[in-house]
C-alpha cells in the first residue's frame, strides 16, 4: 500500500519534472534559431495531431491538411487585420471556420475510400491554394498578407521567440490534453472502430457518417488553430506556404511519427523538422538523403517511430520477466530439492 502511494506520487513527480523541463527550454536554448525551430515544431505538431485523429484514428487519409492550415491562417490574419479582432477571438474563429471547411469536404468524402478519398483531399487542398492565389482583393494574391499583428493579451504583446514559445506550447499542451481525452473517450473509441471495420461499427449502432464528418471537423480545427498561431508567428502568410508538398510533409510527419498515437504527432514533427534542418550541411544533396530516410523509415518502421515505444517497453519488461522467471526457476529448483 505504502509503496503504491510512493509510486503514484513518483508518477506525479514525473509530470512536474516534465513541465519544469519544458518551461525552462527557452532559458536553456538561447540560440533563437533553435527556439524558432522548436516553435515551428509546436505549430506543426498541432496540425499533425489533427491529421492523426483524422487519418490514424478514423482511417481517412488526407493529403490536403495544408488546406485547413491555410484556412486557419488566413481567417485569423484577416480578422485581426481588417476587423482588429483580438488574437484569441481570431483563433477561435479560425478553428470554427476550418472546421466548417472540414465538414464541407467531409460530405462528398463520405462515400469515398482509399485512393479516391486521397484524390478528393488533394483536390480540396489545391482548390484552397488556388483561391488564395487568385482572390486578390481579399487575400492579396500570391504575395500574400504582410504585417499580421502579433498576439496580445491584456496589453502584453507576444512578440519574441521566447514569449511565442510559451504561447505555442501552452496551446500544444492544451491540444494534446484535449486530443488525448478525445482519443481515450467514447468518441476516440468509435473513431477507431470505424477505421477497423466500418460495416461492423454501423451494425453495432454507430452513426458512422456523423463520426466521419466529426473527425474531419476536429482534424481541420486543429489545423485552423495552428494556422492562426502560425500567421501571427511569421507575420506574413502567402499561398507558397500551403502547397501540396506541405500537405505531403504533414502526412509524412504523421506516418513517420506513428499516426495511431497522439504523441506520434509530436515525434513526427520533431523528427522531420529537425531532420530537414540538420541535413542542411549537405547542401543540394540533402533532399536526396531526406527522401532516402523517408523511404527507409516507411520500409523498416511500419508503425512509425512511436511504434518503437512498445517494442522498447517490451524489451525492457522481457528483461525483467526473464529475470523473474529465472528467479522462479531457482525457487522451484529449491523446492524440488
Amino acid at each position, binding site marked *: 500500500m505504502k509503496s503504491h502511494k510512493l509510486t503514484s506520487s513518483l508518477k506525479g513527480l514525473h509530470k512536474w519534472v516534465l513541465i519544469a523541463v519544458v518551461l525552462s527550454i527557452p532559458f536553456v536554448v538561447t540560440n533563437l534559431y533553435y527556439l524558432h525551430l522548436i516553435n515551428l515544431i509546436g505549430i506543426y505538431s498541432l496540425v499533425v495531431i489533427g491529421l492523426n485523429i483524422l487519418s490514424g484514428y478514423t482511417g481517412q487519409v488526407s493529403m490536403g491538411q495544408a488546406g485547413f492550415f491555410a484556412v486557419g491562417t488566413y481567417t485569423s490574419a484577416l480578422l485581426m487585420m481588417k476587423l482588429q479582432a483580438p488574437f484569441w477571438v481570431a483563433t477561435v474563429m479560425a478553428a470554427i471556420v476550418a472546421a466548417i471547411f472540414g465538414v464541407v469536404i467531409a460530405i462528398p468524402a463520405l462515400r469515398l475510400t482509399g485512393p479516391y478519398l486521397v484524390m478528393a483531399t488533394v483536390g480540396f487542398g489545391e482548390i484552397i491554394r488556388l483561391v488564395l492565389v487568385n482572390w486578390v482583393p481579399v487575400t492579396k494574391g500570391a504575395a500574400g498578407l504582410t504585417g499580421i499583428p502579433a498576439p496580445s493579451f491584456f496589453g502584453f504583446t507576444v512578440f519574441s521567440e521566447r514569449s511565442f514559445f510559451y504561447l505555442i506550447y501552452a496551446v500544444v499542451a492544451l491540444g494534446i490534453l484535449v486530443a488525448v481525452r478525445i482519443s481515450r473517450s*467514447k468518441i476516440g473509441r468509435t473513431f477507431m472502430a470505424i477505421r477497423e471495420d466500418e460495416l461492423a461499427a454501423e*451494425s453495432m449502432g454507430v452513426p458512422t457518417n456523423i463520426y466521419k464528418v466529426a473527425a474531419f471537423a476536429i482534424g481541420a480545427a486543429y489545423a485552423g488553430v495552428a494556422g492562426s498561431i502560425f500567421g501571427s508567428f511569421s507575420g506574413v502568410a502567402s499561398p507558397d506556404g500551403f502547397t501540396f508538398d506541405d500537405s505531403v510533409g504533414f502526412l509524412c510527419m504523421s506516418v513517420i511519427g506513428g499516426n495511431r498515437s497522439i504523441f506520434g504527432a509530436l515525434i513526427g514533427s520533431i523528427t522531420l523538422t529537425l531532420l530537414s534542418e540538420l541535413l542542411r550541411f549537405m547542401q543540394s544533396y540533402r533532399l536526396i538523403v531526406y527522401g532516402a530516410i523517408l523511404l527507409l523509415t516507411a520500409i523498416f518502421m511500419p508503425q512509425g517511430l512511436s511504434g518503437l515505444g512498445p517494442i522498447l517497453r517490451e524489451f525492457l519488461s522481457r528483461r525483467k520477466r526473464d529475470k523473474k522467471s529465472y528467479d522462479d526457476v531457482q525457487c522451484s529448483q529449491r523446492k524440488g530439492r
Partner: protein
Amino acid sequence: MGQGEPILELKGISKRFGGLTALEGINLSVTPGTVHGVIGPNGAGKSTLFNVITGLLRPNSGEIVFRGNSLGRIPPHRRVPLGLARTFQNIRLFKDMNVEDNVLIGQHVHTPTPVLSIIFGTQPATEWEDKAKEVADACLRKVGLESKKSELARNLSYGQQKLVEFARALAAQPELILLDEPAAGMNVSEKAELLHMISTLRDEGYTVVLIEHDMKLLMNVCDTITVLNHGKKIAEGVPRMVRNHPDVIAAYLGKGGDVRAGTC
C-alpha cells in the same frame, strides 16, 4: 406486446443480386423468448437474410416488422437502439482494439456522448465511462473472457474472438440477437459453453435467431428451426420434425432424391 405476437416478422422478402435470386418470398415469424434456428446448405441465402434484417441490404420486395414497427428503410445503425444486434459469419471484430473497447462499442447507442464533458475532462464523462465499463465487464463475464479484456482482439484464438463478438452484441442490450454461425471453428468444450450461454439467454428473456451448421447444437437449443434452400423456405417446425423431414435431409445432406449422380 402479447406473448403470442411475433417479435420479428418477415413478409414476402425477396432479394436479388443481378441475375441471382438469393431470397425468394421468405415469410418468417419469430416468437419472443425463443431460440429460432435457420439452417440450409452453403449458398442457401442465410447470411443474406441476416443482412436484410439488419438493414445492410435492402430487399427488392417484402416487409420486415420488428416489435410491431415496419423497419422500412431505417439504416442499420438506427435498428440497433430498437433492439437488434448481430454477430458475423466471418468474425468482424475491431482487431487492433482491445477486447473491452470492442464490447464498449456494442454499447454505443446506450450511452450518451457528452462532448463538452469529454473535452473538459469533467465528471459526467468519467462517470459514464465507468458505468459503461461495468456493463462491458459484465458482458465479458457472461462469455467468460473477463480476464482477456485488455488484450488486442487480434491476439485471441478464433473461438475466443467469436465469444467477444457475442459479448459485443450482448452489450447492445438487444431484444433480439442474430448469431451468424456462432459455433463454427469452436472446439467441443467451447461449443458446450456456447450452448449453455444461449440457453441462459433464453431464460433471461432474450430472443435469439441463429444460423448454424452444427445440428447437435441446433437440436439441443432451438425451439423452432427454419430450413432454407436456394433462397426458399422449404421447411419449418420443431427440431425433431425438421430433422426427419425428407426434403430437409435431401437438401442438407445432398441426397438428390432418386437421381443418383452417375456411377463411376
